[in-house]
């Protein structure tokens, strides 16, 4: 027992990692591999997914995964780099979806164009809608973003606009399942790396300041609201893209695009995958979407299941998968006597 007491676990950074972090020029193959391997693994893994998917149904699941992944990335970015906990992922999906749906249905614009339009216009609109709420924080922002989608849904129902509860069916679909999958996967990969780069740029530091050092930011003559808006815009881009894509994936938009699932799932994915890593959410969705598909047989029970997962993770393993894996990857752990 006493023996145990004087032993403790020590963590050492791998030499490679230490250098790779600080020194900007990486000298040896070893170091390059050290940095490249995980990224390559992710990219290749994602790109191979469609090939190993057993059948069309699972390929469709991959597409859905893509949408959720985008949402999750957006959520993680907002929550852990800018400090805005948004429970309104559905708003992004809905707005993006509807806009591209409208473009396609009423103006006959082809998906190739309507998706980008939906994305951009959607993001702008979402940012404008959320603008007044940006000074709010924590619980307040979370709650109000939570109410926005519900609001949108009710209004569309009540006013009977945009096809009311029927939605707008018969949109033009995307050409082939392969396009479907690689389009979304490509977007996921690109946006992940772009965002990761972004948060390590100078602007990333400003964002982080907005999150937990806002005095310093304002004392530097930088408008916090402005950068919050920028951040929301970025997240909205991802969300709306997901929505627009979804609209043409099923050739249909309706109020259920504002459904709560879209707001909740990103949370779970992020919590499980590893908050504050941006790749974590992707990983999280990659694990959870298929699981929830497999559990489909259990009906409602599967929601129970993944909300419990969420609780457990946040209580007992809040670092999430990726942070953990990363620690293991970058550090030796061993027992030392003290």
């Amino acid at each position: 027992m006493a023996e145990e007491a004087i032993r403790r676990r020590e963590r050492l950074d791998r030499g490679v990692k230490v250098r790779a972090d600080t020194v900007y020029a990486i000298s040896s193959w070893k170091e390059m591999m050290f940095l490249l391997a995980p990224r390559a693994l992710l990219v290749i893994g994602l790109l191979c997914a469609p090939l190993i998917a057993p059948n069309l149904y699972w390929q469709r699941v991959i597409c859905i995964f893509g949408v959720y992944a985008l949402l999750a990335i957006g959520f993680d970015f907002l929550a852990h780099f800018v400090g805005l906990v948004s429970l309104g992922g559905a708003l992004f999906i809905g707005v993006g979806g509807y806009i591209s749906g409208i473009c396609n249905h009423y103006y006959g614009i082809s998906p190739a164009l309507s998706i980008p339009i939906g994305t951009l216009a959607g993001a702008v609109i979402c940012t404008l809608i959320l603008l007044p709420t940006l000074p709010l924080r924590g619980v307040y922002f979370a709650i109000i973003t939570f109410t926005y989608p519900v609001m949108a849904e009710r209004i569309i129902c009540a006013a009977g606009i945009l096809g009311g509860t029927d939605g707008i069916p018969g949109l033009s679909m995307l050409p082939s399942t392969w396009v479907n999958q690689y389009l979304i996967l490509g977007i996921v990969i690109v946006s992940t790396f772009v965002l990761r780069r972004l948060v390590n740029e100078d602007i990333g530091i400003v964002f982080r300041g907005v999150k937990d050092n806002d005095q310093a930011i304002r004392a530097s003559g930088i408008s916090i609201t402005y950068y919050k808006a920028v951040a929301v815009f970025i997240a909205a881009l991802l969300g709306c893209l997901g929505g627009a894509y979804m609209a043409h994936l099923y050739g249909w938009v309706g109020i259920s695009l504002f459904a709560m699932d879209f707001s909740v799932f990103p949370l779970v994915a992020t919590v499980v995958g590893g908050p504050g890593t941006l790749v974590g959410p992707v990983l999280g969705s990659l694990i959870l979407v298929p699981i929830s598909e497999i559990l489909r047989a259990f009906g409602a029970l599967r929601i129970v299941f993944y909300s419990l997962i969420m609780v457990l993770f946040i209580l007992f393993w809040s670092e999430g998968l990726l942070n953990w894996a990363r620690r293991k990857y970058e550090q030796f752990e061993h027992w030392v006597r003290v």
Partner: protein
Amino acid sequence: MKKILALVISLSFVLLTAIADAKPIVIGVATDTQILDGFATIRGLNLAVEEINSAGGINVKGEKRPFKVEIMDTRDCEPGVPVSEALLVLEKIILDKGADFIIGPGRSEAALAALGLIANYKKIQLLTCGGLSPKFHGTIAENYDKYKYAFRITGESRYMVEEAMDLLGGLNSKYGINRMFVIVEDVAFARAGGEIASENLKKKGWEILGYERYPAGTSDFSAGLLKAKDAKAQILFVMGEMAELSILINQWNDMKIPALPFGNYLGPAMEPKFWQVTKGRAAYTIVNLVNAGNAPSNATPWTMKFCKAYEKKYGTEPEGYGTSSGYMAPYIIKDAVERAGTLDPDALVTAMEKTNLVGVYGRVRFDPKSHQIIPQLDPEKGAVGTIFQWQDGKRVVVYPPKIAMGEVKFPPWMMEYWKIKKK
């Protein structure tokens, strides 16, 4: 070498298939198992499948094949669940479970959204319940070649309204009732029903005193009821599937509103338990059950047989909308498949269109354009609906006349308020 190998493999394959002759025909049920329609359908369906399988299955070109049922919850009637979810379920059933026939989904919105999918995969889809919106077979008729794989073996709002108008017309001529107030749930099929009803009754010289939409989750209908009372309504035309509508009935009774609630589709009030749960406040409520057989009646010889069998298996009368149609679905499929002698979708479509068998709720025939089951007042001619009224604890069928088991009654406070007496 290779060739031989290939030969061997293919041979063994052939043999295997030959051995496994009883390859089941898969019926995929993708509906919301959490609401009455959905799970009533499933009960009815299972009952039928049992009967068929125990009777030796389906005869496809001499080969006897059993039914196999794959059930999946689409959660499509829950709030906060995207319809894409339901579509995903459909694809899972079709691609993963290899369903040959699709039942559902329930909610109109989902059913409409599903049409495209069904068209892509060329599977025969039978709508047993929900999806009452006329838009459904409307869409099929518009674009027959694409959507021809979908059939609806149950009534739809527009026809239900016709039944309703027929019944109300009767009341009108008998008691001179002609003032109606409309309260519908805020969903596609109900709104459609409400609007059609108001229009047509207006034409027939009825006064439509108001039209109110309530969203799911409403816990207080006093506003609408009091409006109806102040407007001196005689009929409360109600349509909707949400459980909250039982609140409406309770309040109607508590407030003694002198108007007769006519549930042209009234989810909760269909269930046999409704009387107990409302402590008898359901009395006099009229409910349209869409298809005969959802409550005991003598529509066809088969009807009572079905009700007995159902009661024997589940210990309760057929629960409500979706039960009898769920029960009929396998029989209709069986009939079509046996006539077509194949599972090729296009052949099946033509076979289905020629369907003509007398089922639980009358003769099943489809309109060749819109694939809507042809409704009739006479079970000999087509599918009959059923409208019943809650009378001291029992669901008494009052319409259509051919199968009626009782007369429409009025609550005493209404009688005295309107001095109602036969003309």
